[in-house]
């Protein structure tokens, strides 16, 4: 099972730094935040009260930005990542997020 839509360049993408994908409608965005936190991603945005969680991957510095109300996910490549590596790195991160074991939304759980 996959969690995410296809990876595309996001609005405002400069030189392959910003990417977008969306969680499937039956997947709970909060469960992605929890799963990434368990994998060592750090909450660096301190914006959860705005409904936005910014999680940084250990080692790479790449970030996954999760919109809790809609399930939009923006991948932000670390600016120090060499240009030639940005596309493969975005695909790698997308793949990793895509195969997380995530919980369904309550509506999906109840069959709604």
């Amino acid at each position, binding site marked *: 099972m996959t969690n995410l839509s296809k990876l595309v360049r996001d609005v405002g993408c400069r*030189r392959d730094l910003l990417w977008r994908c969306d969680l499937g409608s039956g997947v709970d965005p909060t469960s992605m935040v929890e799963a990434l936190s368990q994998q060592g991603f750090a909450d660096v945005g*301190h914006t959860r009260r*705005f409904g*936005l969680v910014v999680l940084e991957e250990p080692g790479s510095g790449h970030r996954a930005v999760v*919109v809790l109300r809609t399930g*939009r996910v923006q991948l932000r490549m670390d600016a120090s990542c060499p240009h030639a590596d940005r596309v493969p790195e975005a695909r790698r991160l997308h793949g990793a997020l895509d195969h997380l074991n995530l919980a369904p939304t309550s509506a999906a759980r109840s069959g709604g």
Partner: protein
Amino acid sequence: MKFDVSKARELLADHQMDFLGGAPVVIHCHHFNLFWDQTMDDALGMERGIEVRTQAAHKASHTLLRGLIDSFDKSTPIERLGVAAAIFSAMGHGKLHLAVGRSGGLVRGDSLHYGFGWREKYGATLRRSAAADAFAAGFSTAATEVAYDLAPGSLRALEERCIVDGSTGCEIRVSAGDGGLDIGGVGVEAAKRSLPATFDGLHEERIVPIVAGLRDFLGGVAGDERGVIEAFGVLVTQHLADYYNHCANDTMAIAVAEKPGVVDAYRALLYESGIACAFHTFGGVLSSPEWEAMVGAPSGDSLEILLGCLAQARALGFGKWTLEEYEPGSRLVLSSPGSYETLFGRVCAPSTPAGIFPGAAVGMMRLAHEVDWQPRANISNALYLRLAQKNTWSVVETSNIASGAAMDRVVVTRT
């Protein structure tokens, strides 16, 4: 050095204008900033443009840093230079390493906003030899003068190396100046005395909560470890409003005196800078995950887009822009008890040209009517250029507080 600048901030809430250390500040992105600097260079030529921009930064930064130093009671040059470098980074302009004494010295810059932004936006397709960071040069000059209690104009600066030409870093040389620089500008007390009475417009009940949310969010935004603010899909700066104002006024004075043939084109470019600001900044914010989280993804309803833009203008410190009249598809009237440009005109120099309010009004109509927001908008330079060629909207500025009127007012109609 990290320090809390909140006690040096002041918001004139009735007019949605922000001050830091007594100096007016606004938020602008790299698209606008690069366009703005290019406009000065187009009017005056690169060499003269750099001179004017550096001096504008010098004057505006002197006001800011003097105010901050007084607020924080910093007495030694090292402490003061530390405050200057910290505030520069916090505002999203990059990192400065100020190795300077009272007669000048060398400043190393990392991730400086203009050079970094230019390389990010144009580096893959264009080549450039002229240094891009006049703002950092002027700021460094002011920082050194304020650190050593020197009179404005005692020093000058020039960026000798810049990453736009492939250099690995930026270097700014600070050296003896000609003296006697009149820094002018708008202070917070002058603003309070001069601004006309505020007023509300249509749909305030929808705009005000968005402004509050955006201001709350922006209050927590500051430069990262590089001194860079990446948010809303753009490189963001908190900037000195009087940097733009001194640039606009000084360039116009030179153009009128020495190059009258460029005055009309210069005015047109200032107006275009307002369109670029609305399209890239407002459009970028509306398309961002930050906006989607706080407000929701734009449905594409034209009124919703316009109100979102007006809320942004307020939260970014441009002024209390209000909706006076709106006929979807045909006519927009905006009014405001002042913008950061016209306030400068009212306080300092009435002939200062102002492009942000009329230009942004046109940019907002483009966003509201000519961008497909569903399923998602494609705010890009290619779309910006395509809409510029169509040129669907025209604008008339019907009043302006710089000339003594009670409001700024613009009317946009279909061409």
